């Protein structure tokens, strides 16, 4: 029992715990929409395009959390909306347009970082440092989680119709484009809020892995939303605890725990796991053989 609770006697661990569980849930819940809409690659592109925004904010405003929030949001939206504009005005498909833009933005960001007044630690940006969670980070996590969860709850019906069948959503008077833009804004907000905890690359793991795992387990989109949130929170908690006990970096540990859950679901999910499916097929085969031999 002590082994379980001991790590959380330290205040920095308590803070880390709150932020981790909260952002784990928020990422997981939001991730369901991302996976249902097949936006995982867009989210990846957005995570990279945060870099120039954050670097520019650091050059002009110093390295404060609100500056990073605004800078990151602007840069990611320029890439997302710019990609859409390019794909609509040329023969390029949107994933090519967005990939072209974000990789250019990432390169620009790496050069800009050199000119920031404050030293921006690239590895910190990429992998985060959950044990140094400050007050501002805590409030940012609260605020972003509240905005994300409340707006997703309010918009879940129109969003789900839009994700499933955009054309039907349009006939119902739902503003599909505006909803998808809001989803993009939420992805960026949650990413920036997750920056301190797990870093920008690993926040993608918290966003995608729980939803991908639950997607392999359920036929109910409603269940998928809540279960992905719960899995994100539990994964973050277990990962944080393991990282303390084993003295390894927390961000990667959280993602590895979520990755383990994903692999287990892929292999042993009762309905769609490949092992379970293989065993079921053999069973049916034998059954039909038995039926034939009766004749």
């Amino acid at each position: 029992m002590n082994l379980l609770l001991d790590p959380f006697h330290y205040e920095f661990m308590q803070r880390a715990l709150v932020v981790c569980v909260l952002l784990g849930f928020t990422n997981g819940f939001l991730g369901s929409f991302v996976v249902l809409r097949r936006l995982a690659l867009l989210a990846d592109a957005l995570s990279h395009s945060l870099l120039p925004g954050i670097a520019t904010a650091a050059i002009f405003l110093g390295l404060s959390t609100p500056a990073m929030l605004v800078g990151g949001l602007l840069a990611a939206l320029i890439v997302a909306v710019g990609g859409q504009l390019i794909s609509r005005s040329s023969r390029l498909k949107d994933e090519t347009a967005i990939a072209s833009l974000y990789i250019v933005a990432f390169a620009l960001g790496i050069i800009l970082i050199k000119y920031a007044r404050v030293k921006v630690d690239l590895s910190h940006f990429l992998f985060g440092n959950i044990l140094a969670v400050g007050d501002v980070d805590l409030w940012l996590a609260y605020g972003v989680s509240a905005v994300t969860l409340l707006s997703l709850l309010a918009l879940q019906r129109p969003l789900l119709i839009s994700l499933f069948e955009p054309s039907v959503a349009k006939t119902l008077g739902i503003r599909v484009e505006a909803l998808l833009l809001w989803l993009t804004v939420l992805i960026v907000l949650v990413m920036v809020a997750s920056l301190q905890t797990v870093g920008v690359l690993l926040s993608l793991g918290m966003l995608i892995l729980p939803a991908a795992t639950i997607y392999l387990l359920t036929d109910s989109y409603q269940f998928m939303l809540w279960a992905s949130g719960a899995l994100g929170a539990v994964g973050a908690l277990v990962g944080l605890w393991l990282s303390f006990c084993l003295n390894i970096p927390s961000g990667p540990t959280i993602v590895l725990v979520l990755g383990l859950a994903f692999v287990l679901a892929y292999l042993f999910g009762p309905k769609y796991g490949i092992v379970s499916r293989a065993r079921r097929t053999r069973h049916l085969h034998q059954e039909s053989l038995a039926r034939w031999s009766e004749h």
Partner: protein
Amino acid sequence: MNTGLCIEDVTVSYHRVPAIHHLTLSVPAGRCVAVMGPNGAGKTTLLKAIAGLLPLETGRIAYNGRSLGSGRERGTIAYVPQREAIDWDFPITVRGLVEMGRFPALGMWKAFGSSDGAAVDGALDAMDLGAFADRQISKLSGGQQQRAFLARAWAQQSDIYLLDEPFTGLDRNARLAFAECLHRLRADGKLVLASHHDHSDVAEVFDEVVLLNGELVAAGSTADTFVADNIERAFGTRIFTGEGA
């Protein structure tokens, strides 16, 4: 004429090339209507225009005297897209899909109540899907999938059902079962418009036919309209009917 669907002088273009020209047409409620014509005749375009998915260049579309042009009545129209447009792996059961039909009436916050549950059960029964309610949508046959989308529209209490090539890929039994479901909608006073390309079963499924070829060729009851002359004018080919051979 105020009741039913009124289409007046409608033109719809893609990149300034009109796909349907100055189409005027009226159809009363309680009918099954086939929209027919060669490829590129504007069948899908007409359905999408009625659904409000494409802007009208000229004209207006009204249902029971109320214009469908702007401020479209939520849920009046049920658009069933072509099968290829649907993500069949979506984690949703037949019941979940039909429940989606209640979303417009529920808005953002209203809880799913017992009357909604009854509407969903009624829709599942009407489309003979009760036994498959808990199946994921990819684990249905083609005909059952089409009926699941009709059931969703029924739960939405739509008046106009727009179906894009619903009979594609269905075998004879599935066609008959699906036609029977369409006739149930008709008996309930709904208007069904379906783009269709199989000439052989038009008479047994549809009451009325709209023949298109970029513009209106002919429209009216199947017996009067779906005749060799009109078909030739729409499709540009003489078909062998056995008459005068």
